[in-house]
């Protein structure tokens, strides 16, 4: 064995084996260390993990944007008469799945022009600058609803004076700024499962069953 090792070819073979062992060892060490802070959590790239895209509307099939409603889905508006002549109030409720509403604007129904804002239940509301008759409210913190199906979010009442009534329509409101919440706001409430009624059993409030 010793004699064999003294041969030049044998030496080269030993060095080669050691070299391969070193490379494998080095890669193993690199693998161990790279699973620490330097490794990158890769996301899949197919299906729902592809970049978001929206199909563009067919040319010529888009409605005139000025004819579209400016009412968003995040607030509900109820317009009612106030105490004095030409005085009105609009009640705006947070029904959004976003979170807290911090700023909003409200446009009266067509034909109604706001003369002045006389008060608000929270925040600061006033006539917005510009040619369109619009109430702008800031400094709000209207809480999100417990479920978008309940509509029990925070409420804002704005009192104002207008030149004339706007009919039955409640105008259009839109969220301007909001604080999204981390927790998902549900769109429905899951009720407890009710077991099927046994033969002869009647459903009662204390012992409900279905199909009696």
């Amino acid at each position, binding site marked *: 064995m010793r004699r064999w090792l003294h041969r030049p070819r044998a030496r080269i073979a*030993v060095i080669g084996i*050691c070299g391969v062992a070193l490379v494998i060892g*080095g890669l193993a060490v690199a693998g161990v260390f790279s699973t620490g802070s330097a490794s990158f959590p890769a996301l899949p790239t197919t299906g729902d993990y592809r970049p978001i895209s929206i199909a563009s*509307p067919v040319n010529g099939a888009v409605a005139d*944007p000025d004819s579209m409603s400016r009412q968003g889905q995040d607030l509900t508006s109820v317009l009612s008469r106030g105490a004095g002549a030409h005085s009105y109030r609009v009640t705006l409720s947070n029904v959004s*799945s976003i*979170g807290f509403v911090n700023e909003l604007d409200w446009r009266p129904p067509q034909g109604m022009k706001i003369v002045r804002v006389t008060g608000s239940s929270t925040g600061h509301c006033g006539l917005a600058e510009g040619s369109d008759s619009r109430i702008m409210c800031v400094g709000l913190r209207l809480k999100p609803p417990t479920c978008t199906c309940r509509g029990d979010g925070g409420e804002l009442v704005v009192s104002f004076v207008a030149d004339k009534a706007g009919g039955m329509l409640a105008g259009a409101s839109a969220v301007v700024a909001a604080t999204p919440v*981390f927790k*998902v706001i549900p769109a429905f409430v899951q009720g407890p499962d009710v077991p099927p009624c046994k033969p002869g059993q009647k459903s009662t409030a204390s012992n409900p069953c279905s199909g009696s």
Partner: protein
Amino acid sequence: MKHLSRRVPAVALAGLAGAIGLTSCGGNAADSGGLTAGERRDAQLAMNALQRSNIPLQLVGLTTVAGLAPAACRVHLVSRRPNVFKVYVFWVPFERTRPYSWLEMTITKDPTRDAFHLGTARPGAKGAGLRARTRIDNRVIQDHAGGAFATPGARCQVLRNGYLKLLANP
């Protein structure tokens, strides 16, 4: 053979040290956007921590309302130890009469410390030509970014499921 038996452990040790050195260098070296591999990993983990939250729903919802994919998505490393990131996503609406909207998030690997803000602004480019509109859009994107485009940082992408993905810096 004596020489050989002395050299083998020395060469092996040198190789080992080299491998460790190379690996640790890769972890601390910053990319062209100024982020190290560790910081990129933390950024992606912070965005992954939002996956079960309300945020993906809002990202998809805001994209649907805008009628266009986000015009900008940027992740900026705000502070280190712990790594805090600002994520800025901005939408330019397809319909020019609709408002611009943006979602600003300050996130860490611990989502209980995250903060979110949704803003909107009325567009001012109605009737302008395409080039002028693009210029105005870019200005509005920058106006509300609040340093999100500064380094260290990287671009990001909103995925179809509302998740956020950090993109590689060129």
